[in-house]
């Protein structure tokens, strides 16, 4: 075995060394070939210098002869020497971050070219792809790029949130309170059992987390790789797309550039629900028929003071729990100081940032401090050394009930309005209802939020160092070593308290949890790039390993006093520690070829070995290929004054599911050794218990997705109008599904992972732009629209279904969604309502609904045990009620500038999706006495028959509150996501004010979520997901989006 491995390893080295030698030899042979061509064509040698707008030389600038494959790169002094085929050739000079220039030679042989810093539109010229960059013109896959200006426009914590609505096919949904990561999907849901998170790569480092810890102000650009040909270079992890973040480097112009950005603002809740006040609550309790049995409402009790010594009685109390729970004008602020500069040898960018966001609900906030330094140093013509280092610390205060079954929002709906929030006579200072005395038992949500302390402190370090070796001008080697260390410390504390009712703790539980993750990355990369006449060839070979070590420690205990909030001296101390690891080894190869910039071809393959699979299943191959045709380079279009760009492209490839969400041993159902206890009485007081809770599946393998992408890029009138259209089809034939084991197998129905499903996403994306870049009034309009259709092709058996999500409080335990072959994934599932029974005769003449009475909801008889309506309303009558998947999503971004003023307006919307509004089940379900929505007062009675609200009846025997079309609502919305109005002070004013201290000063005001157009009745139509991917679109009573207003300044020194 060892010997075999050694031989295998040596073989790989030999092949690599052989390849290098070959490339070397090929490179050596090349000048000869060019010389021959020169002679034949009588080429004209042209020399020149390329500088930036301040006159500093730019190294590495691409200088090409338009329409040919002839190209050079400037040297350290910015010089180039190129052989132009004719005196009338046109040179194309391009460089990352600068506007590309085309210079007709018109007989000139010596040039001085000054490149201008690129406006955001010109960003398109070069795109960052995996393990390198590529000219946009030669890209054959689906890549969308987002500029720094766009990423920093929204006042949000993370880069991921900043991408909402900015990229066709990229869907970002807010999912929780400040500091919680949003849901990000590229081109829809790709997996049934796992989150569809894309892979995030920051400066070449593939992260195992999201982007919540990264400061958007450090970002140079973001590139989103959407199809197989671009993403497959990340192979095993690329099914959900790849988001590549590139951070800022310094410039080489010899000047220090200092920037200062700061903004502050306030956020407020957008919407309020109509809930019952005290008088209405009494009316409702009467309608439910329970008021008589509730002792609270007896006159002596209801007219008693709310606590000893209070002058107010319960009858006089009218608590608006929404006003108490939500916070208006919550602070939102952020700032960043950046310093960058450099010369011909070294350059750097360093920055420090701060972000703080308070929640619009009690006890929620997020704060982050971050620091970055990036630099690179040209040691010699051959060696360049560079490094990126980023650290951040963050503090999040969160409300654990926001992810529990009964969220704070469920509780605030349910809280009786006659109960006061505070009660100074109680330990802890809050008051709550007494279960049987009030006939109701919600938990005071203000108490839950404020009584204890729940915090996550995170430390994140991402650092990498690389050495570039310019072996030849066409052959470069890069060796990278990087480390990502993450440490999350979660602290939970609840003091001893008693609110007189449901809220009580007799000891103070203290819990510390520390989760640390260490990821190490080694990348060895060889890039070859060479132009032979009209042939341009590029090749990349990569050997990479990435290891992960995860350490989880938890300590819990109870304090008998409120004076100590740590574990010192606590009782019942328990500790646990577990360690997990994984290891990924990759071999990557990619070749690019283009002929005369017209015919483009790219192929890549990645072979990955990943430790998380069972022996024998560890390795898999992920190939991809793509072709492109730049019609604008053809003779018949070249001279066109109208069409400035026209490219057709197609790609096909294979990608794998991002394993971040799979855990480290997904195939294994191990023994939960000592995973439980049973307290026998006797000598062995608490012996350990070991059990198995699943079925091991050693055949589990990588979920692979076949992806086809066809795209066209179209530009007219010098790209004033641009259009990019994409069609894609993504199909997975070995979808990993948690095959639900029958509950009788004895694993609580948890299920076993197996590759048994098939799913397809088909979609189109359209990106339209109009760019007016000249004159005093400049503006830019970008519209995005994307539509995706999802279909589950097959599951483990033709009749299999995956009912998912249920909650006894929300509809009585019915599954929220179902997944079946032939339908879209996780459609909403339940009965269809058919009006209200108006009288006993209608009940008698309708399909049997045992226990139905006049005033109850009639449900439709759709099927039965034999697949046909059987006159009985039962589980066979459940059907598809809608889908969380929108028909299309769209956004419109308009940015304009007039002289010193600039403005931008950003609309974002989704259309045609449904939401399961479970807070409305809480408000209108009427199955038990709780506070409710005012609509319950319009419940059916024999004298109030013209209503769609069924009768009020405790116990809900007809199950009016079951999951049905009653709770499904149209989730379409159009949101004015962001408006910005800015003013840049004229230089003359600045000089007179500050001398030359301040070079640039812009002030702006902005608003987020200013307007929302929606028919959705809940707090917020932007619905995240609580329990995993199969409850998307279920509103569990989540933390809603806020409306905010900001003021900010941006200064340059």
């Amino acid at each position: 075995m060892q010997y075999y491995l050694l031989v295998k390893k040596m073989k790989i080295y030999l092949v690599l060394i052989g390849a290098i030698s070959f490339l070397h030899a090929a490179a050596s042979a090349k000048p000869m070939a060019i010389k021959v061509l020169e002679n034949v064509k009588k080429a004209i040698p042209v020399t020149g210098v390329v500088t930036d707008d301040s006159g500093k030389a730019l190294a590495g600038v691409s200088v090409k002869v338009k329409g040919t494959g002839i190209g050079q790169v400037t040297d350290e002094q910015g010089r180039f020497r190129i052989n132009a085929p004719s005196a009338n050739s046109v040179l194309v000079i391009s460089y990352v971050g600068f506007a590309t220039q085309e210079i007709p030679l018109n007989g000139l042989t010596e040039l001085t070219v000054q490149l201008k810093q690129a406006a955001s539109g010109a960003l398109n010229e070069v795109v960052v792809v995996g393990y390198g960059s590529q000219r946009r013109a030669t890209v054959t896959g689906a890549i969308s790029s987002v500029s720094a200006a766009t990423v920093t426009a929204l006042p949000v914590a993370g880069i991921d949130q900043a991408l909402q609505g900015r990229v066709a096919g990229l869907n970002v949904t807010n999912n929780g309170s400040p500091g919680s990561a949003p849901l990000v999907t590229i081109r829809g849901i790709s997996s049934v059992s796992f989150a569809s998170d894309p892979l995030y790569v920051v400066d070449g480092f593939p992260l195992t987390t999201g982007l919540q810890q990264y400061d958007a102000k450090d970002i140079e650009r973001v590139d989103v790789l959407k199809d197989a040909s671009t993403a497959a270079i990340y192979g095993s992890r690329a099914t959900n797309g790849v988001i590549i973040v590139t951070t800022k480097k310094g410039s080489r112009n010899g000047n220090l550039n200092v920037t200062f950005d700061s903004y502050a603002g306030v956020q407020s809740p957008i919407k309020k629900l109509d809930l019952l006040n005290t008088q209405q609550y009494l009316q409702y309790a009467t309608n439910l028929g329970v008021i008589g049995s509730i002792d609270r409402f007896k006159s002596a009790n209801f007219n008693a003071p709310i606590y000893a010594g209070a002058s107010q009685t319960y009858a006089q109390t009218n608590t608006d729990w929404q006003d108490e729970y939500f916070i208006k004008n919550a602070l939102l602020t952020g700032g960043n100081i950046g310093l960058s500069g450099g010369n011909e040898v070294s350059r750097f960018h360093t920055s420090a940032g701060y972000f703080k966001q308070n929640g619009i609900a009690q006890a929620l906030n997020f704060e982050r401090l971050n620091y970055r330094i990036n630099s690179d140093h040209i040691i010699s013509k051959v060696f360049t050394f560079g490094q990126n280092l980023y650290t951040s610390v963050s503090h999040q205060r969160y409300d654990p009930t926001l992810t529990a079954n009964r969220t704070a929002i469920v509780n605030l709906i349910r809280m009786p309005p006659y109960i006061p929030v505070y009660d100074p006579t109680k330990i802890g200072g809050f008051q709550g209802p007494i279960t049987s005395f009030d006939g109701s038992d919600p938990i005071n949500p203000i108490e839950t939020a404020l009584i204890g302390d729940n915090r996550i402190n995170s430390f994140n370090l991402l650092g990498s160092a690389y050495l570039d070796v310019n072996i030849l001008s066409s052959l470069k080697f890069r060796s990278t070593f990087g480390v990502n260390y993450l440490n999350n410390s979660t602290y939970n504390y609840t003091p001893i308290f008693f609110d007189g009712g449901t809220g009580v703790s007799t000891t103070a539980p203290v819990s510390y949890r520390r989760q640390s993750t260490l990821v190490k990355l080694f990348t060895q990369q060889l890039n070859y790039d060479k132009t032979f006449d009209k042939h341009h060839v590029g090749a990349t070979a990569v050997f990479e390993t990435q290891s992960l070590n995860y350490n989880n420690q938890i300590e819990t205990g109870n304090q008998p006093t409120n004076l100590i909030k740590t574990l010192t001296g606590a009782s019942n101390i328990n500790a646990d520690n577990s360690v997990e690891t994984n290891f990924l080894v990759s071999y990557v190869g990619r070749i690019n070829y283009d002929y005369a910039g017209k015919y483009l071809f790219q192929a890549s393959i990645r072979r990955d070995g990943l430790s998380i699979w069972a022996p024998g299943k560890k390795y898999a191959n992920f190939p991809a290929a793509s072709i492109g045709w730049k019609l604008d380079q053809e003779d018949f279009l070249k001279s066109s004054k109208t069409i400035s760009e026209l490219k057709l492209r197609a790609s096909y490839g294979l990608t794998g599911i991002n394993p971040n969400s799979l855990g480290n041993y997904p195939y294994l159902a191990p023994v939960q050794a000592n995973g439980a206890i049973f307290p026998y009485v006797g000598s062995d007081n608490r012996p350990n218990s070991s059990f198995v809770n699943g079925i091991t599946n050693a055949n589990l393998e990588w979920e692979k997705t076949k992806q086809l992408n066809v795209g066209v890029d179209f530009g007219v009138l010098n790209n004033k109008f641009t259009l990019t259209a994409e069609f894609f089809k993504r199909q997975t034939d070995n979808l990993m599904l948690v095959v639900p084991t029958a509950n009788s197998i004895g694993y609580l129905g948890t299920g076993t992972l197996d590759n048994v499903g098939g799913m397809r996403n088909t979609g189109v994306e359209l990106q339209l732009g109009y760019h007016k870049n000249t004159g005093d009034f400049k503006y830019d309009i970008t519209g995005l629209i994307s539509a995706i259709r999802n279909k589950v092709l097959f599951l483990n058996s033709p009749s299999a279904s995956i009912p998912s999500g249920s909650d006894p409080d929300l509809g009585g335990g019915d599954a929220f969604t179902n997944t079946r072959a032939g339908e879209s994934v996780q459609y909403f599932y339940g009965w269809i309502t058919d009006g209200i029974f108006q009288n006993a005769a209608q009940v008698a003449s309708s399909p049997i609904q045992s226990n139905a009475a006049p005033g109850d909801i009639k449900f439709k008889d759709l099927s039965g045990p034999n697949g046909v309506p059987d006159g009985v309303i039962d589980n066979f009558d459940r059907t598809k009620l809608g889908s969380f998947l929108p028909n299309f999503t769209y956004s419109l971004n308009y940015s304009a500038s007039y002289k010193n003023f600039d403005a931008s307006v950003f609309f974002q919307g989704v259309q045609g999706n449904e939401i399961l509004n479970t807070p409305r089940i809480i408000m209108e379900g009427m199955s038990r006495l709780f506070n409710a929505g005012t609509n319950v007062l319009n419940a059916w009675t024999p004298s109030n028959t013209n209503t769609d609200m069924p009768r009020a009846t405790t116990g809900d025997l007809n199950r009016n509150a079951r999951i049905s079309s009653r709770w499904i609502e149209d989730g379409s919305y159009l949101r004015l996501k962001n408006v910005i109005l800015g003013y840049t002070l004229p230089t003359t004013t600045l000089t007179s004010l500050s001398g030359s201290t301040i070079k640039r000063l812009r002030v702006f005001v902005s608003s987020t979520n200013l307007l929302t157009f929606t028919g959705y009745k809940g707090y917020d139509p932007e619905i995240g997901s609580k329990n995993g991917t199969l409850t998307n679109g279920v509103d569990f009573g989540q933390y809603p989006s806020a409306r905010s207003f900001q003021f900010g300044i941006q200064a340059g020194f």
Partner: protein
Amino acid sequence: MKRKHIYVGILAAGIATTGITVSCNKELETTNQNRPTTATYFGTASEIEAGTNSIYSAWKGFNLVAREWFFIHDLRSDDMASGGSQLEAPRRQILLGVVDPSNPVLNSVWNALYVVIQRANTVLDAAPRATDNTAVVNRCVAEAKFLRGWAYYELASQWGSVPIYTKGAISPTDTQPKSPAAAVFAQAVKDLQESAAALPGKSGTTAGRATKAAAYAMLGRTLMQTGDYAGAKAALLNITTTGADGYALTDRYLDNFEEETEFNKESILEVVFFDKGNNNFNWGSGSGDDPNAELTTVRNQEYNPVAWRNLIPSDRVLNEYENTLTGATKNDPRYGYSIYQSGDTYNKGLSVITDGDQGGDASKLRGNTVKAGWRKFTLIYKESKEAAGFHPGGNNQRIIRYAEVLLMLAECEIEAGTLPQAVTYLNQIRARASVAMPAYPTAQFPVTTKADVVKALLHEKTVELAGEEIRNVDILRWRKKGYFATEPLSWYTAAKEFLPIPQSEIDNNPKLQ
């Protein structure tokens, strides 16, 4: 040119270094360091014992004895009534006979019973591999069979026809079709017979583990349910009344429901709960998992007359106790031992329970409106209303006590036609020191005919065992025997005799159809 060779050399060296750093294939062979696999675990007696412990652990989880198991029994019996509007809708629906296949309470119990069966099967499948301590392994095998038998008894009596598993599933497709209720009872009988033969007496094992007496008592219950009264009698008579392994009635009736007197001489089977004093309940795991889990039961909380009061004694139960106002010669003291009524003292005699303390619905006792709640298994006999506001307790759930064995024997004798022997058993119950009710026959309860003795049995079983999760299964058996003059459950129809199989089981077990 020479220089370039140097670079190539550097490059090759770089790659080679990386290669040495990373011996990839070895690194790919990671194992879960925190968890062993079934291939290696369960190979020793101590591991088999740990596996056996996990069956008990699931048994005590809130899907079973710590919560939903007693709800299923109580909601489907006429021992209980709703305490008020605070009773959750899915529970109220079962109480009123409206049981939907997605009802979460019934789903929880079904799932957890099969967890018990699966964990028992894991032990039984692996036991032959563990050869290091045959005595321990044999005892564990007997305990696993006992717990599996108990689970099949519960399944057959609540659901009727259900799938039977006697081996652990290896693949998700290893599901079983429904077997008739008779076959499910037969499996329970087989398991209980085998375990009864092998289990030690209570003096030979740790309190809380299954014993020979527990197995015979369960076997008696099960055989009676199948109509085999002779077999049941034989099994029950194997429960000895003498010696270290003997059982007898406690003098003090209340000893059977209080925390201080767990594992007394009357107690045959208990599920152990333990209060760590932190007022928590393991809401997180229905099967009671997590090594640091709370070990409390929420039973005393659910029925607590001064706190949640979700279920209260039904009017039938309240009115069943003999009282001088209705012609008895003595008030049955078990009324006050089982039930709190306004005016009673609690909290070690320091507090008096009032109508105001008992929120929610009232009851009718002999035509009067009273507020009453359960005393059995609640902890307010020794704690204040404030302390009981939320306090899941450590009071063990008694599953079988010797009084029930006597009442089962009485029923066997009735069915065998030996009425005097039946009356003797009934009178043993009434003669308990702290009860001391006049022996049968009484004016209200003559014992001349079989019908008389049946009536006395039904009466005695309610006043002795009300609220102890026995009545519901008795109803199933007595209804068939024609013991009832009127149907005890208002909602009963033949279609509702058994609970429906949960929807999630129907969805995922293709062999059910």
